[in-house]
């Protein structure tokens, strides 16, 4: 039960964190699933004494979301999820910031790492 909640939350986090990458287009769900699996695998690889605290922070994240919205994080709308993420990102508490930063780094690293070679190369060279 706790594990499946953790897995669902991590997947939803990765999907939400990567929204700027696929905004306005059909997301490549194959790659998104690979990203979520990678994030979960990396959690199981991290130093053993950090795994449980990380899970607990995640459960607190779910709990806080539930108190604020009456729904679980992964059942929320994308916009709502992104605003929760942003508020944790800017939190004064470092465990909150670290939790988001951890998944943010893994999501983006693997998003580019798992792209098929062609689409990984720049779509356009126009400066933003």
């Amino acid at each position, binding site marked *: 039960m706790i594990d499946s909640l953790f897995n669902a939350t991590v997947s939803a986090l990765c999907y939400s964190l990567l929204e700027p990458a696929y905004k306005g287009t059909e997301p490549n769900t194959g790659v998104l699933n690979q990203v979520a699996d990678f994030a979960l695998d990396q959690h199981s690889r991290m*130093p*053993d004494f950090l795994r449980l605290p990380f899970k607990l922070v995640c459960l607190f994240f779910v709990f806080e979301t539930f108190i604020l919205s009456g729904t679980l994080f992964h059942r929320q709308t994308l916009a709502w999820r992104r605003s929760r993420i942003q508020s944790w990102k800017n939190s004064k508490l470092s465990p909150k910031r670290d939790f988001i930063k951890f998944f*943010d780094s893994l999501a983006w*690293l693997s998003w580019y790492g798992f792209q098929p*070679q062609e689409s990984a*190369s720049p779509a356009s060279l126009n400066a933003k």
Partner: protein
Amino acid sequence: MQNDSRKTCEVCVIGSGPGGAITAALLAEAGMAVILLEEGPFLSQETCAPFSVQEMTMKYRNGGITPAFGKPKVTYVEGCCVGGGSEINSGLYHRTPPAVLESWQKEFALKEASVQAMEPYFARCEAELSVSTMPYSAPAPSLKLHQGATALGWKSMEIPRWYKYEIDSSQASGYLPVRQSMTRTFIPRFLAAGGTIIADTKAHRLLRGSNATWEVNALQKKSQEPINISAEHVFICAGAIQTPLLLLRSHLGSNVGRSLQLHPTIKITAEFPEVINTKDLGVPVHQVKEFSPRLSFGCSISSPPYLALGLLESERAEYAAVASQRMANYYAMITSSARGRISSLPGYDDPLVRYNLQENDFRVFKEGFTKLSQILFESGAVRLFPAVQGVAPVSSPDELPRLLASVVPSKTNVMTIHLFSACPMGEDKSKCALNSFGQLHDLKNLYVNDSSMLCSAPGVNPQGSVMAFARRNVLHFLESRRKA
């Protein structure tokens, strides 16, 4: 491979990174019966693409997630496979700078470590690892750094690497660069000399056996089967963090794990108006050494995944999809006098690493951001994305004060790939764990021969120092045995 769980040998070497691989090979070539124990898997270089996400999961310790706790946290990475860090690193080679050797002799009473005394060990390593400069033009991001620094009148140079360049007409450069990691050099030599490798097996504790031998208690990672190795001599070469951890767990030695040093590093991702980055970019090779050892600059891996990480703090990771061909990652590396601590946590396998930067280090970081930005703007960069949380990209030198105001511990991303010195060598027993040749003070037949033996941060890429000292210590060991 042997299957029984009890093994006997003359020497057990724990860890097969640059320190362990050269130790094991030289001992086996001298005719000794050597077992080389390695926690990670035995994978060839071709198993995965260099600097890829797959490589992180297959060859890095903890998948590359290893923080040192302090303000700020410093993230570090280490190799965990046969060959250790040499299988995943960039191959940039330096000798230990003369001023550093001098300070080690003075401050740690390290014997026989003058420039002249060390010369043959460095020279031999350079020949055996084919240390050389590139026979073709360096990658564009590397040249950008060089041009910017040179225009400012600062010393910048191409750093030689342990690479062989095989002629290959299918490559754009006409050469296939082949990294001379341990699985290509000392591991094959070790096996050819009759040595035994036991991979996927972690040493957990060292105990004194009977008849002045040592017992190494290890566990095979997949089967969880215990293996006990009885050896006359043990060389611990498990790297800068795991070597002191193993000693602490075994309650052996003094001054162990309390003096960890590293090269704290900050990063900037630079955007240029023209294409400078290609899929087959390879490893950038220039470094700016004008302010070394206090501060050095270089260019790091700049594939889209690593560019995205560089852009993360300014919340622009998606921009890597659009502009990766015009971008590259650069770093400023400092030499800090801070010393960290490694502790063994009861009930856990992984160590707690604590490291606190000193107040002055943030002044040097600010200088690093300023000077690196100057170099990059001088070489034509149009936008810089510093790895400082919440800082918007910087488009001109006038905007640097805005960046510098945010360079504070809670916002600055600090990382390192160079760790050492948690078991320093030298005759000063008040601060050294090892004697001048790597033997633990007052413990017979037990040695450390890896990056943890370096007395302090060398201020340059460390593998050259690790291997030269490891060679020196093994030859000293063999010579002492011969005399005895």
